């Protein structure tokens, strides 16, 4: 796992283009008469308007303070709608975001830390710029998929937990990888909640000082390395079930947009590239290829749902993505232990050359996949 913030609303953070002639002229205001002027300083955050109509909201930010600052639009629960980090002293920036009706806050965070100075922002009216109905359909279908994955995971994780509670190490080992599959296939959603992932999917080297190690990987180590389960592991198993039921309940409320789906697909490939190909994710059980498959399957699901629009906007890209998804899946299939099971070869048996081949196939897919978001919102 890695802390990834799923961007929840289509946010077009555009750096103001400058006149090319001198290379140093500042651009005039972003143009829109409805733009909110945000004047940030070391201890204040002034906004020219407290209420704007729903839809495209533009912030013309100027940092008059002495420190670099960060400006955010926040949901009432502090979830970030859109943000711009590292706005240097004396510089301007235009932040735009698509915002639905509701109560928000604008936060200026001088020095880019702390809660910052806040201003209320009411977004009124009900109309958001109308989105392609095919994209609305894609979002709805993706939410349904994510919910199915979560629903299917609960009995599997209960099987895993029950085996641990019964002290049956072999049965627990068998149930470990399958209990993770649904989570892995929709991981960006789980990570967008922020608080669940650190409890369920933290690896030992990701722990902060004083943080208790809980979740799948703590149990993985107990099963494969310590080869024993005691009272502590039984408690961890129960907590894992509880935390995942929390996840299951919250999937339906996750903010999902076409952009976040496309970026989520790319992030799943990032997970593969940084965690699975290296064998870091499941370093004790070596079940990395099962997680790998879960990540790819989830990425492909997002892509397939966005494909009708993406194909219309950039046929060459979807042709390439079809080809590379197929190539990676074909390669992964070679590592199935047998055709009927969902098990994969233990990753410590995968040679350096084979890992290189897998890594090349991941790069071949991830590079064009990184272009999907821009093509979908075109």
């Amino acid at each position: 796992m890695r802390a990834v913030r799923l961007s929840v609303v289509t946010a077009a953070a555009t750096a103001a283009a400058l006149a090319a002639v001198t290379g140093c002229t500042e651009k005039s205001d972003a143009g829109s008469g409805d733009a909110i002027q945000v004047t940030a300083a070391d201890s204040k955050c002034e906004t020219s308007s407290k209420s704007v109509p729903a839809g495209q909201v533009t912030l013309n930010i100027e940092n008059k303070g002495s420190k670099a600052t960060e400006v955010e639009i926040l949901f009432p629960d502090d979830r970030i709608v859109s943000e711009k980090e590292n706005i240097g002293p004396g510089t301007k920036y235009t932040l735009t975001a698509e915002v639905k009706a509701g109560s928000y806050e604008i936060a200026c965070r001088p020095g880019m830390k702390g809660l910052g100075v806040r201003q209320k922002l009411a977004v009124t009216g009900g109309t958001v710029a109308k989105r392609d109905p095919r994209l609305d359909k894609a979002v709805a279908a993706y939410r349904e998929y994510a919910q199915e994955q979560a629903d299917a995971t609960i009995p599997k994780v209960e099987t895993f937990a029950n085996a641990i509670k019964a002290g049956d190490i072999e049965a627990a080992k068998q149930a470990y990888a399958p209990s993770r599959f649904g989570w892995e296939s929709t991981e960006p959603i789980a990570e967008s909640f922020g608080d669940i992932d650190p409890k369920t999917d933290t690896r030992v080297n990701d722990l902060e000082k004083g943080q208790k190690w809980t979740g799948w990987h703590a149990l993985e180590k107990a099963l494969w390395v310590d080869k024993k389960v005691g009272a502590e592991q039984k408690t961890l198993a129960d907590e894992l079930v509880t935390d995942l039921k929390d996840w299951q309940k919250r999937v339906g409320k996750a903010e999902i947009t076409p952009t976040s789906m496309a970026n989520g697909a790319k992030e799943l490939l990032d997970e593969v590239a940084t965690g699975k190909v290296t064998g870091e994710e499941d370093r004790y059980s070596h079940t990395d290829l099962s997680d790998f498959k879960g990540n790819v399957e989830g990425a492909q699901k997002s892509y397939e749902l966005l494909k009708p629009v993406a194909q219309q906007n950039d046929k060459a890209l979807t042709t390439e993505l079809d080809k590379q998804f197929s190539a990676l899946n074909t390669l992964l299939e070679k590592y199935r232990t047998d055709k009927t099971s969902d098990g994969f070869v233990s990753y410590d048996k995968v040679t350096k050359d084979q890992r290189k081949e897998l890594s090349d196939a991941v790069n071949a897919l991830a590079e064009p996949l990184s272009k999907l978001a821009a093509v979908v919102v075109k």
Partner: protein
Amino acid sequence: MTNDTTQAAGGPSPSRRSLIGWGGAGLALGAAAAGGAVAMTRTGNDVDPAGAETGAAVAFHGAHQAGIATPVQDRLHFASFDVKTDDRAEFVQMLKDWTAAARRMTAGHAVGEGAYGGLAEAPPDDTGEALGLKPSRLTLTIGFGPSLFEKYGEKFGLTGQRPEALVDLPPFPGDNLEKSRSDGDLCVQACADDPQVAVHAIRNLARIGFGKVAVRWSQLGFGKTSSTTPDAQTPRNLMGFKDGTRNIAGTEPDRLKKFVWVGEGEGPAWMTGGSYLVARRIRMNIETWDRTSLQEQEDVFGRDKGEGAPVGKAKERDEPFLKAMKPDAHVRLAHPDSNDGVTLLRRGYSFTDGTDGLGRLEAGLFFLAYQRDVRKGFIPVQRSLARSDALNEYIQHVSSAVFAVPPGVLDKDDWWGRALFSKEA
């Protein structure tokens, strides 16, 4: 400019040069369409040694590829690639995309639409780390390996196109080659005076290549060990010696023609004006070398350590008297007079890749040599050296590759490998 991240300047295709306000006079090339004139240090075959002293751009277009006779830059990033596609059209498109990117980067421009200012939802075309840096005499030189013809000959329509001179190198005594960092279907040599410019170039080409090619191995070189400018001192290798003082210079058209460029009718037509590249990663046993007495070090090379003069002579470029040297001295064995006149254009770089895990430097020479025919160049010389060279006690060849380096890209419509891949050519 106060802050690149908040105030994009220069439109979508910023020139590194324009950002730093470097004002060189020069001719406008095809690349200048993007908004900047390019200072030329080289046109066609003519080399301007003065170009060696500036951070200017080296012309990308010419009869021969730049990066061979060009005055040697300080830094190297060399990459070897495996082909990952069976689709000829896709591979050819990548060669065209690479050429376009190389044309921009060697002129000091960012790749594609630039590193910032584009769509917020898309990753930028250029990776950005060379913004604000000078062109730094970046040259990018492509080569095709024997395996390209063997593995993809039929799929890519290259049957019968493998030059006879592109031989698989025979095993030499003392070789201890690592397969995973030897060979390759194609290669790109990036040389520049700024290491970040060279690394940026390979990184961006690798990125464009994903799905079509994959990096097989790569090597960084931090210091040049050869000079192709006759007035410059020969740089020292990590053993502290000057080696290859009579290297072929960019200003010696006769020797270039005789020893480096492939002539018309020598092998397939697509190689006319090209050359052959041998790359060898030569690990040095640095610590044992350092414990060797000065007398033995000088005997091993056949030169004095201070000036670099051959045994009994005063200056590094004095003509050596070979018989004054020990029979196994490196200079004596490598000298053209001991090899029927054979001379290689050497363009190697010192490397250090940290330590070897045993507390010793993982360091040596990344040997690069260009020649008209490998069979009459590197192979006979290395046979002789591998058999007898006193230096062998302190070095080991750990990787090896050979590539056919096609002729230059002529103009803005031309592309790397066109003569090989284009039916009409």
